[in-house]
């Protein structure tokens, strides 16, 4: 099929309207590479949730996507405030998003549990005041 391919995206933290551009680009690329639709969808949803989180909670960051013939790995790294309690953040409904985010259609506390659901493997590394790196894998 294809060798390992890698894409990197800088996600801007100050423009909410552009959040999701990276995920959209990856979805288009995977489709063109004939990755099975089910895997494309899993990547698209989990990466989009992660990208939105980066923008609303961490002032942007960097996303690296690695594609091999049997796995898609997404690494979302930011230099935001970090997550105080990962178990709490993973609970459906927990959110620290301010009200103005809710008027934009987000901030229900559903993103992290959804990322867990749609990825086949998820790891969160975080340090308060330093940043957060979320690594997700979807197996093809």
């Amino acid at each position: 099929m294809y060798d390992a391919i890698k894409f990197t995206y800088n996600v801007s933290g100050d423009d909410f309207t552009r959040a999701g551009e990276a995920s959209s680009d990856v979805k288009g690329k995977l489709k063109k590479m004939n990755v099975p639709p089910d895997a494309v969808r899993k990547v698209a949803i989990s990466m989009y949730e992660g990208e939105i989180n980066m923008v609303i909670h961490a002032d942007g960051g960097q996303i690296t996507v690695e594609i091999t013939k049997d796995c898609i790995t997404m690494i979302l790294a930011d230099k935001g405030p970090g997550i105080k309690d990962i178990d709490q953040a993973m609970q459906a409904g927990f959110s620290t998003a301010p009200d103005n985010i809710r008027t934009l259609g987000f901030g229900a506390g559903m993103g992290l549990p959804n990322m867990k659901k749609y990825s086949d493997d998820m790891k969160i590394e975080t340090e308060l005041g330093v940043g957060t790196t979320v690594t997700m894998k979807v197996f093809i």
Partner: protein
Amino acid sequence: MTIREIAKILDAEIICCEENADLDVHTACGSDMMSDVLAYVKNQSVLLTGLCNPQVIRTAEMMDIICIVFVRGKRPDEAMIELAVERGIPLLSTGHRMFNTCGLLYDNGLRGGGDF
């Protein structure tokens, strides 16, 4: 029913991608929270929403939703229309409120899909 039939039932304007208005759809979901659309929608093909920003188009794209209906007379701006055109997603705008929009479509055979 087709997207064109939805437009007729809702007295809605087809704002873009009319070339895809004859696509057949069977299920829909309605929400102003994209968080919930991402978390709960499974295979629904139409999104009914009162939220009007570019993330509505991106959420639809990620969920493989093929048509968006803006309720309460909301109208997408140029940037949103451009995003939708790139993805071939017809955008509709109706003056009906959410409850009536859902009711009219349900009455005409469209369903929610999923278990509940």
